[in-house]
């Protein structure tokens, strides 16, 4: 199921060949892009086991085909209101160094787009928001703005807090 979805989205995005591929996700009304190289898998919302005394934005751990993967709420991490799980809620499983996996809960996975890195506008504005550090840049796609996230910074900050 999960990989089919990824493949379907990849097929959509493959129309354009230049630039880098990003998975576009929705949090509230905003759209964010995640570098597809990080994305291992996209799974549906599932039962999460709470881990006591963890950071507030970590919702707990899930069983991903026999592996235990920590899952964080992207919304809480970005300073938004807590998640409301719906039928379109997904967990994006990202892979980091040393085979470490982390899941990110998002409201919806929209599509996969190609973004030319040169068209990425560096976010020189809005620096007052705490999550602006995670932004790699902003891209414009079909009249909507997509904030491209650097997942490495998102999880690394989590480590320091």
């Amino acid at each position: 199921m999960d990989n089919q979805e990824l493949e379907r989205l990849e097929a959509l995005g493959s129309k354009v060949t230049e630039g880098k591929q990003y998975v576009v996700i929705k949090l509230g009304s905003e759209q964010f892009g995640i570098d597809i190289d990080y994305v291992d898998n996209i799974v549906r919302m599932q039962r999460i086991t709470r881990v006591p005394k963890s950071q507030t934005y970590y919702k707990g751990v899930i069983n991903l085909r026999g592996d235990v993967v920590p899952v964080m709420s992207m919304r809480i991490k970005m300073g938004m209101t807590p998640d409301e799980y719906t039928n379109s809620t997904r967990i994006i499983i990202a892979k980091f160094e040393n085979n470490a996996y982390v899941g990110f809960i998002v409201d919806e996975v929209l599509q996969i787009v190609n973004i030319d890195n040169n068209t990425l506008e560096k976010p020189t504005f809005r620096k007052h928001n705490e999550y602006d550090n995670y932004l790699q840049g902003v891209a414009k796609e079909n009249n909507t703005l997509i904030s491209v996230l650097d997942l490495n910074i998102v999880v690394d900050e989590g480590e320091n807090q």
Partner: protein
Amino acid sequence: MDTSQYLDIFIDETKEHLQSLNEHLLVLEKEPDNKDTINEIFRAAHSLKGMAGTMGFEKMKRLTHDMENVFQEIRNDNMKVSSKLVDILFRGLDDLEGYLKSVQDTSTEGDLDSEDIIKGLKEFLEDGGEGADDEAPAQESAAPADNAEAAPVSEGGGFTKVVLADEEKAQVDKAREEGKKIYGITVQLMETCILKSARAFLVFKSLEGKGDLIKSAPTIDEIEDEEFEFEFSMIVATELPPEEIKSLIMSVSEIKEASVELYNEPAGAGAAETEKEAKTEEKADKKPEKKAKEAPKAASQQSNAKQQPAKSGSKHTVRSVRVDIEKLDVLMNLVSELIIAKNGLVSISSIGDAGDDAGFKEQIEYLERVTTNLHESVMKVRMVPIESVVNRFPRMIRDISKKLDKKMELYMTGEETELDRTVIDEIGDPLMHLLRNSADHGLESNEERVKSGKPEVGSIFLDAYQDGNNVVIEVRDDGAGINVEKVKAKAVEKGHITREQAEKMNDKDAIELLFRPSFSTAEQISELSGRGVGLDVVRTNVESLGGSIEARTELGVGSTFTIRLPLTLAIIQALMSEVGNEKYAIPLGSIQTIEDVASEDIKFVQGKEVISLRGNVIPIIRLRDVLNIHLEGEEPASYTIVIVNKGDKQAGLVIDNLIGQQEIVIKSIGHYINNDKMIGGATILGDGEVALILDVNALV
């Protein structure tokens, strides 16, 4: 000949021999007259020399050769073991280790040079042994380890020293009656030959059917174990002419020389000696007493020799295969998967209709049994006695003792305690650190010790033992102990804590300060320790292995560092329990009992909740509070309390519900998510749900 493929084996075996030499040399220093030890040393040195020579490492060969000469003299009672001699021998071993390191890194010996050691050894040889005139010792030392095998090395006719037992003599007589000729055959292998036993086997094979083998020296078993130099002898009864036998033998490759001669029984064991004596006639008159002494000794050793290798063989050489640890990891992972799948079946069988089917249940139980056994076996394969790590410590302590000019003794127990291979590999450095700490900071100087009425020689103890699902390693010394006030003062000075904090701090917390990064109380920085990169590194190392470390100390009496390590890393037996509506696993190894306690039996002592259990006052930990589980509801009339222990400390964990015992596979929850160390990992239950594993060591 290309020997690179044997390099790994060479390195491994050389390490083993060096370790054995180190150990026995230590014993020898204490018991200079211990014949077994010197024989063992000689054997190891000899094998080492042989291997180095085969591999073409000339420097190693030369150094071991000279060391061997010294051992030979000691063995023949021509030289006394002195501390100075042991020093130089140890230096020789260090150099050999240096060569080995270089071989390991670059496949060559490097440019290390041991001339001074070789010279030192030569001097000892010249002064030490009164019988060490001329070249006699050098020649003798070329003989292999066992005296019984010493014979074959002298050029040609080695078979003449083969002594036949009665039944073998009978065989000879019988063969003669049948008109067969009895030949003594001595075969010399090329020194470049690596598969010695294989070549020897081919020689035997070539003679098969052509004649009857009556006896071989060394015995077939010894040859199979490669317990011989490049020469072996045999007595064969055959009808073939000697030339034909010779050509048969020479047809095997890597044979240097084969001599086939008619065999005549020697006049008893003395024959060997007479021959030797004839050769050394001109020298013999110089040292007649020695010869006289040697003869009976040789005879007695000959009779021993047969049993000795067999004995040591059964003790040390367990038939083994070297397996890549990664292959074991794969095997382990598969077993883990199997157990998860099995747990899945168990949970289906316990809820669904299938539960009624007795046959199905039976099969599940069978599967359970098999997986448990399989797991245990795989686990055992990965277990290594801790000996392989700790056996280098006595030598280290000896060196430190000399360097610091402080008399000390290391006592070790429980070297046979087994730990997972991955743990073994990592635990060496922390232990070494702790031992050095004890030797350098822990123990007082000899004078101080005498002054305070302690025995002059300091003692350091290294004890390992199993405690439930943990292995405990204790490093203890009978030194001055840790001065808690000094630690506090230092911490204030370094800005770790404020003066007020220091005053309020109890001793236990103060000792904890020692584990802070860059904290060292040594006034002076010494070569051994005191650079401030000490205990915090030890703690980090131990914790990365899933273990814990704590220190206890008594001023003037000594200090103890206790390391606890998990026995197994992957699969454990656990008690599944419910707290609120969440499931947690408590490792069975740390559980003592499970008690039902009425709520009125919970008392307060110093503001903490305790229960009294069979005379013990045990603090209780409400897991709901610790795990931040907030549920409405009245206090129940009684609680289920799991009594756990960490060393001699006990605590009661209050849970809501017991689910039961289960075998669980430990999975890491990754390092991105914090958990206050309370959670030791997670496991996947039969229904796919994730349950967390409580780390009792962190809770108590």
